[in-house]
């Protein structure tokens, strides 16, 4: 488990177009210098957005990785939800501070309807 290095790889990938080209050419090779587990390497190669979120990757880093792979916004949100469903709560990092309760629990706690199933983020609350 090396969340720091997963995020460091993504941080460097997100800000360097030459590095992005190298990643496109040989995904496994560019991961070599980073201290990563086999699970993390697999998630970064596939890519498995849901697993990366479950591992604790910050969404501010992860959303650019998704965009790099031409994943649309609504699909990106759904992949994270699927990852939590498949793998369980976020393991560590900022989202593990109080435990990830899921969209429905969050919405209920705020007295709101849940997010729309289409992933648009339409909460059904007033003022939209």
């Amino acid at each position, binding site marked *: 488990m090396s969340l*720091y290095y997963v*995020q*460091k790889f993504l*941080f460097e990938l*997100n*800000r360097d177009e030459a590095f992005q080209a190298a990643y496109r050419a040989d995904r496994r090779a560019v991961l070599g210098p980073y201290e990563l587990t086999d699970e993390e390497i697999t998630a970064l190669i596939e890519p498995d957005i849901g697993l990366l*979120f479950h591992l604790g990757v*910050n*969404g*501010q*880093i*992860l*959303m*650019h990785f998704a*965009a*790099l792979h031409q994943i649309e*916004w609504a699909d990106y*949100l759904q992949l*994270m*939800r699927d990852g*939590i469903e498949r793998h369980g709560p976020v393991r560590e990092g*900022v*989202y593990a*501070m*109080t435990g990830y309760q*899921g*969209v429905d629990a*969050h*919405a209920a*706690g*705020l007295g*709101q309807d849940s*997010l729309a199933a289409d992933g*648009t*983020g*339409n*909460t059904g*609350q*007033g*003022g*939209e």
Partner: protein
Amino acid sequence: MALVYAGVCSHAPGITGRADQADPEVREEFYAAFDQMRAAIEARGAEAIMVVAAEHFANFFMNNMPAFAMGMADFYDGPIEDAGWLAIDKFRAPGNRDLSERLIREVMATVDVAYAEEWRFDHGIAVPLHFLTPAFDLPVIPVNINCQGPPLTPLHRAWAFGEALRRAADSVPERIALVGTGGISHWPATPDSGKINQAWDEEFLDRWCRNDRQALLDYDDLTVYAEAGQGGFEIRTFLAVSAAAAGVPGTVHFYTPIPIFAVGCTVASYDLAALS
């Protein structure tokens, strides 16, 4: 000269990148509020805009994360994100290295601020500039408070930093506009993206407009996370502007939750003339 403008605004990437998915009427009202903010900054003759941001791992990472940072360069490139994704073309914004250095030296008298001679703007600065200096013809002084990588900058230190920014702005002959940009409640880039706690936002904005230091510092990260999401950590940028405004009252010019933008969209400012 002095600080001539102090305000806050939202910066979420969806504001530009997902503009076509928002209700056009609400979106245009929000954009109009940005236009009014730009007009106010121009009317005060600002010679530089200091943007207090909560950057998102574009320049600063957990290998060396500063609590505070200020840019000290003659130019800044952006956006670091894909231009199509953000719907903002690649740009080079002017800086002012000499002005930055004078401001940083003054801030350093009370706050240990890091400086950066290289800084690539992410959406946190690019989106506000897109509306506030669309021709990129106003020198920018980028400023950052760590709102992303815990342990985060304590709120009372963000306040002290804002006071230092005010003192620095008042120590230079140039007319400085100060714009804080961030939250308020939101869960950006997570499965909860689009969730907005409007009641929490309105309570926060009430405290912000009263410029009530005690009430603004009466938040803690665990509660903020539970009620306002990790995006709520960005209130640090709003608090810094409150401190810089030194007790004067503020006005919310626009606040409306726009879920597809993933934030309660906000434009607000302090009445600096109230002190004079």
